[in-house]
């Protein structure tokens, strides 16, 4: 390992760090003031790059590059301001989870907007006039532009620092970060401040994107990729700390650079390619930091926010006679599906998808509803189950029933490990860490070709024996899903389920009553992970294959949408939500190229108009009917 290679990668790392920092800084400023984690932040970065490329294309050299950057910053800031005015303003008082989902929906919409505006092809911009040369460093040629980028990060950091400490606007931002209510009480126009802050954050992200012009093409996958990186950086640095964001960006970029520089290393006779670690490295650093410092390197515990009245969930009530009848009818319908299949061949296939989605969503709901822990990485356990079962079945040659046990067991084991770390964190940090763990699982699956088949996945996972016939497998999976749903329901009513609700309702009160919150949450996480693993196992056998796509971040978000669509406050919610979502996906979304925008619009509609979801809507209607019947 030569020193020059290390130095070369280190400078390269600093250049990457600047890019990371620019996205993370905006995210951090927006969070600090508005308390919103902007899931759409990567979209502003992506838009910045697209706009810069488009504008640069139409300008004469040498103004092309710099003109593109300037216009990109101005336009992304403007779009940011518009988004704040139209969408965010309506959700500041909504529960954290809804804010995360609304901004994620915004990301989906913006992604399709980019697809519509610029098409699916990647677009490469011009190089920066005046910075096209290279300098020689330790015998290697280093692009001028990388050195410029390496310096751009610290320059923006200093500029922001100056803005925050010297200007009235900056002082207001800092004051609002400390105590938002007080700033409002002092007569500062909060609305204008929030819009300005959002525009500033979006503009910085746009700058970050635009400056990548000579290094990478504009593409539609950038938003999610950058978002993941930015989260990691902000969480490591500490939410709301700009200095922390820079330090964290440097750490992450350097760790990645080091992995690349080290290349293949021999460890105990085993050759291991360190560069493969780059996908996971940042998440490992984040997990490590969060365990040692739950609020990040420079973060502080969230400032005391006064509790806003939010809708409190109603106590659990067993189903009445009507509800029982409906449940039995639904069970009968699903059990009779193979018969219906004689006339509608597609019905059992769709029913199978619905069943798997139901268990996927119901297991997430268990930790998200009663547990109050919104996991943004539930697909990880789906994947562990699916890959675990497929591997055991294909490579170890176990029987189908044994694979049906092994898959969930492996997912459960994953939940034991990841859950132990995750349940110690609250709210946004919990969401981020679960997302990080899911990304680790995804990366390992993607790269460990010998076991997982890499990007192709595993094939030929067809059930054997009595389960070989489609009807046999359908009925078996129906029985398993039904059992899983009933177990979750039983648990919700049990003392354990109430202990979980107690920890969510008031952690202080629960602890003062002697409830071991961490253990209760951990066990709930393991149960949810195991049952989600069962859903994944069934998925692998139903499709005969499993690929990394089925366990991506997008799938984790699908699960969240199913739960919310159905209604997070009801045990029946995830059942409705999963069914509706699957049917919708199967019908409408297959027909259009812009299904992301459609899904995004659906999510925003749920958050803004029907926060109770389908179950909430149904019980409203039922209550209205009862009232109407009560009056003569």
């Amino acid at each position, binding site marked *: 390992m030569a020193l020059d290679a290390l130095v070369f990668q280190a400078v390269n790392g600093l250049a990457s760090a600047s890019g990371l920092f620019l996205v993370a800084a905006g995210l951090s400023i927006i969070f600090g003031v508005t308390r919103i984690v902007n899931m759409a932040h990567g979209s502003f970065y992506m838009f910045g790059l697209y706009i810069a490329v488009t504008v640069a294309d139409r300008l004469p050299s040498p103004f092309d590059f710099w003109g593109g950057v300037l216009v990109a910053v101005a336009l992304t800031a403007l779009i940011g301001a518009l988004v704040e005015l139209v969408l965010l303003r309506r959700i500041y008082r909504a529960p954290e989870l809804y804010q995360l989902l609304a901004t994620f929906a915004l990301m989906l919409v913006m992604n399709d907007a980019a697809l519509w505006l610029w098409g699916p092809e990647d677009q490469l911009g011009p190089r920066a006039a005046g910075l096209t040369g290279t300098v020689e460093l330790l015998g290697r040629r280093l692009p001028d532009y990388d050195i410029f980028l390496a310096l751009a990060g610290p320059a923006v950091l200093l500029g922001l620092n100056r803005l925050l400490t010297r200007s009235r606007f900056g002082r207001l931002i800092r004051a609002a970060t400390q105590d938002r209510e007080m700033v409002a009480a002092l007569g500062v126009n909060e609305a204008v401040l929030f819009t300005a802050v959002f525009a500033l954050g979006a503009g910085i992200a746009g700058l970050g994107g635009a400056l990548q012009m000579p290094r990478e093409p504009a593409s539609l996958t950038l938003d999610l990729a950058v978002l993941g990186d930015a989260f990691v950086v902000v969480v490591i640095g500490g939410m709301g700390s700009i200095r922390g964001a820079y330090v964290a960006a440097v750490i992450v970029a350097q760790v990645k650079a080091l992995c690349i520089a080290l290349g293949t290393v021999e460890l105990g006779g085993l050759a291991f390619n360190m560069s493969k670690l780059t996908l996971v490295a940042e998440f490992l650093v984040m997990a490590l930091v969060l365990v040692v410092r739950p609020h990040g390197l420079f973060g502080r515990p969230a400032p005391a926010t006064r509790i806003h009245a939010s809708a409190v969930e109603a106590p659990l009530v067993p189903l009445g006679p009507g509800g029982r009848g409906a449940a039995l009818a639904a069970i009968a319908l699903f059990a009779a599906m193979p018969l219906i299949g004689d006339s509608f061949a597609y019905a059992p296939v769709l029913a199978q998808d619905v069943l798997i989605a139901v268990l996927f969503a119901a297991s997430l709901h268990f930790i998200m509803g009663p547990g109050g822990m919104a996991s943004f990485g539930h697909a990880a356990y789906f994947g562990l189950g699916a890959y675990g079962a497929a591997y055991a079945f294909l490579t170890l040659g176990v029987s189908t029933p044994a694979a049906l046990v092994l898959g969930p067991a492996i997912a459960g084991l994953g939940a034991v490990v990841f859950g132990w770390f995750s349940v110690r964190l609250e709210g946004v940090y919990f969401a981020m860490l679960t997302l990080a763990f899911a990304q680790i699982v995804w990366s390992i699956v993607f790269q460990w070709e010998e076991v997982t088949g890499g990007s192709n996945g595993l094939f030929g996972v067809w059930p054997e024996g009595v389960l070989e016939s489609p009807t046999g497998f359908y009925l078996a999976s129906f029985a398993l899903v039904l059992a899983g749903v009933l177990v979750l329901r039983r648990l919700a009513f049990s*003392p354990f389920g109430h*202990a979980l609700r107690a920890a969510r309702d008031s952690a202080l009160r629960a602890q*003062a009553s002697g409830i071991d919150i961490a253990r209760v949450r951990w066990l709930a996480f393991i149960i949810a992970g195991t049952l989600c693993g069962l859903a994944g196992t069934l998925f692998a056998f139903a499709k005969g294959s499993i690929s990394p796509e089925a366990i991506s971040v997008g799938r984790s978000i699908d699960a969240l949408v199913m739960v919310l669509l159905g209604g997070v406050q009801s045990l029946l919610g995830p059942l409705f939500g999963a069914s509706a979502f699957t049917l919708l996906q199967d019908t409408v979304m297959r027909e259009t190229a812009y299904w992301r925008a459609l899904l995004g619009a659906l999510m925003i509609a749920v958050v803004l108009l029907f926060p109770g979801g389908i179950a909430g809507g149904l019980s409203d209607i039922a209550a209205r009917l009862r009232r109407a019947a009560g009056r003569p």
Partner: protein
Amino acid sequence: MIAPVLQVEQLAKSYGGVRALDGVSFDIRPGELLALIGPNGAGKSTCFNIVNGQLRPDAGTVRILGRDATGLPPRAIARLGVGRTFQIAAVFGSMTVVENVQIAWLAAHRTVFAFWNPLANRHRAEALELLEQTGMAELADRPAASLAYGDVKRLELAVALAGNPKLLLMDEPTAGMSTAERGALIALVKALTTERGLAVLFTEHSMDVVFGHADRVIVLARGRLIADGSVDAVRADPKVREVYLGSGLASGERR
């Protein structure tokens, strides 16, 4: 002589360079209603939070029922037989009144890790009995989130009593209540103290409540204990008069 339920010795705690508590010692015996008072910034909250386990002292010991409880987390303190109510009453909003007490009862008996039989069937009679004692039995099946604040306070008291504690820690038990409600609640606590041989430590801003109901009063000022005695003795104590009247707070406190 009866052994004290709580023994606090030489507690000290500093924040930065500021001494919030400095050599504070006191104890409580069964059946005693002990008020902890002092002007703002005297160290009441610090003292209270060390006893309930939310803060760790720099020096000194906390003994509960003879056992060293210094620096134990809140959950471990609860398990030693300590019940607790909060300044802003905390109950489990998504459960009914009786379920609140049932889950607390199970937690105190270490049986929350039970997965099959519904909570609704477990120890409902015991929970109703406790609700009877705090005057909440009629509201047993109402959602806790729908209660008026005075009732939330009574429910929280029943939840705290579910563990059959020997020591009850109450942080400003009457904060946010009307004058009539205050008297009723503290009279209830007083009756329970006598009935159950319970020891109660409470902080309080309302001097009417303190001087009307406490058995004994301890006074903190600038982190030090300046008085410890009966209501009358503390009322007459020149040091106490100086701290309150001298700092001009007396009129504000005498409501």
